[in-house]
């Protein structure tokens, strides 16, 4: 390790220990375990800053945070899955004594033996860890793919195809009251006929041209090509709108983090 690296590391650690001491003293009047309380907040702040430091460039602090994150998150998912599904849903159906051990209400049933099937499939999945019997893992894989292919087939058909088609049946003339009325009111309110009618025309043409853009088996030229070009424009408006709409959400995440640093760690705001 280079000397400058060691100096930087030492300085950072020094600062965080200082922050720990300061934070603990300020917590001393409120908390019993103020030393631990101070350490927890300081460590959180350290991790927050370690990730943010990646914006400058890759560094050992980021690497530390990254590797810690990977380890902790994998274990978190395992623990939650074990307690909620294995203990919560499987054991009550399989064994009375285990149910008593884990203190979950046993659910007797004459067909409960079928719940051994997922256990067997699950164990086959774990065989993937062995290189010799790894191919057993294809069975549960096939089960999962089959389940979701089936589920998705009907649900997408219904909600994203069938329902969307009928939702597009919009009138191209909304309560037509003559040209004078049409061109005199450009408001977004219910009385603004122009906006409503143009909006529906845009929906009509937009959906049709958009679908034409996704037509793969016909060459996009001539009138078809023109429609497909309009389609991509509509898609671009959609993407632009999505982007604009999203920026705000992304900013709020940073607001959350900075608020944590200023309030919980540095005590700058209340």
């Amino acid at each position: 390790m280079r000397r400058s690296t060691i100096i930087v590391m030492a300085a950072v650690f020094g600062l965080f220990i200082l922050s720990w001491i300061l934070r603990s003293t300020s917590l001393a009047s409120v908390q019993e375990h103020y030393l631990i309380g101070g350490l927890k907040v300081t460590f959180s702040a350290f991790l927050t800053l370690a990730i943010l430091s990646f914006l400058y460039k890759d560094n050992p602090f980021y690497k530390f945070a990254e590797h810690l994150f990977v380890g902790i998150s994998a274990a978190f998912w395992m623990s939650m899955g074990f307690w909620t599904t294995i203990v919560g849903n499987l054991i009550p159906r399989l064994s009375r004594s285990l149910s008593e051990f884990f203190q979950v209400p046993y659910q007797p049933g004459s067909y409960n033996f079928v719940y051994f099937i997922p256990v067997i499939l699950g164990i086959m999945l774990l065989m993937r860890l062995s290189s010799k019997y790894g191919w057993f893992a294809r069975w549960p894989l096939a089960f999962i793919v089959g389940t979701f292919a089936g589920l998705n087939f009907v649900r997408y058909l219904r909600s994203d195809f069938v329902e969307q088609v009928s939702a597009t049946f919009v009138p191209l003339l909304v309560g037509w009251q003559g040209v004078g009325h049409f061109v005199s009111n450009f408001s977004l309110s219910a009385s603004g006929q122009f906006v409503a009618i143009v909006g529906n025309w845009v929906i009509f043409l937009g959906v049709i041209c958009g679908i034409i853009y996704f037509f793969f088996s016909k060459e996009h030229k001539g009138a078809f090509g023109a429609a497909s070009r309009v389609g991509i424009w509509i898609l671009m408006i959609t993407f632009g709108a999505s982007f604009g709409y999203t920026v705000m959400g992304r900013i709020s995440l940073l607001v959350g983090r900075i608020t944590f640093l200023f309030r919980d760690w540095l005590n700058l705001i209340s």
Partner: protein
Amino acid sequence: MLDTAFSIPLVALSDIGRVISLLVIGGGLLWILIRSLRAKEVDRRIVFLFIFIAVAAPILFPITFQERATLIVKRVFDKVESSPAGSKVLLAFDFDPAMAPEVQPMADAFSRHCLEKGHKVIFMTLWATGQALLTQSLERVVRGEYPDKLDGVDYINLGFKAGNENVLNIIVTDFRMMFPTDVNGVPLDSTSIFDDVKSCKDLDLIIAIGGGKPGVKEWVLYIGDRVNVPMAAGVAAVVAPQLYPYYPKQLLGLLGGVKGAAEYESELVKWYPHLKERGTPGLRMMGPQTLAHMVVMAFIVIGNISYFISRRRERIQ
């Protein structure tokens, strides 16, 4: 509580702070613009720094704006408001800590509104990381602010189950098959809130709060379209545009991002003024949001200016 003698210089201080930060941001942008006019790109780290300042400054020196509920938000509010007391409302907390700053304000507003109205609330989540958040927010909002509401009677926490949309696929016909007990191991049969609730069909309103997958889309696909129960949603801004096709037929209303939350909060404090003291995080967040928005827009403009200038130079050469 601050003394009046103290608060005057503090107000002045935050005013000065606001002015200084605006000057820093404005001046900096001008500097970047001038650099761009000379066809020099700025390093992305400088862009990062600007966003940081634009967000941090209004947090230190708060700026607030007024909000008014738009129709798509108002419809959700009106539905909760007009349902008779005792209606069974399901609140799905399908988000993780990362998304929480954006959608937690909505979740809090929905919880408060439902409890104020005397609805019976069922909490659940499809995200493993959501359960820990759900625990925290029940502790804070439900047990902290409404201590007289009873677990199992006025509200219940079903917690998390693994399986994503599969969980929905089961509770659409039977809650107890998926959730034999609530999160604390209490059998559903022994709770009065589940007395005449067998499946999602028996609910009066479903509000899904989310932003990822599984999220609101899965709720619409697996529950909303299958049962005749009105459904509303609060989502992270990023997914709101793609949920618009579901409104108003499949979703009665939609809160998109912090702005949606701020609009809902403004409506909520208008009807229930005492909720104002409990905090309006959505409204408060609009300050930093607005400033950061302006910076992002400025960057788009500057980026394009520098693009056109460099293109013209190329053409001349």
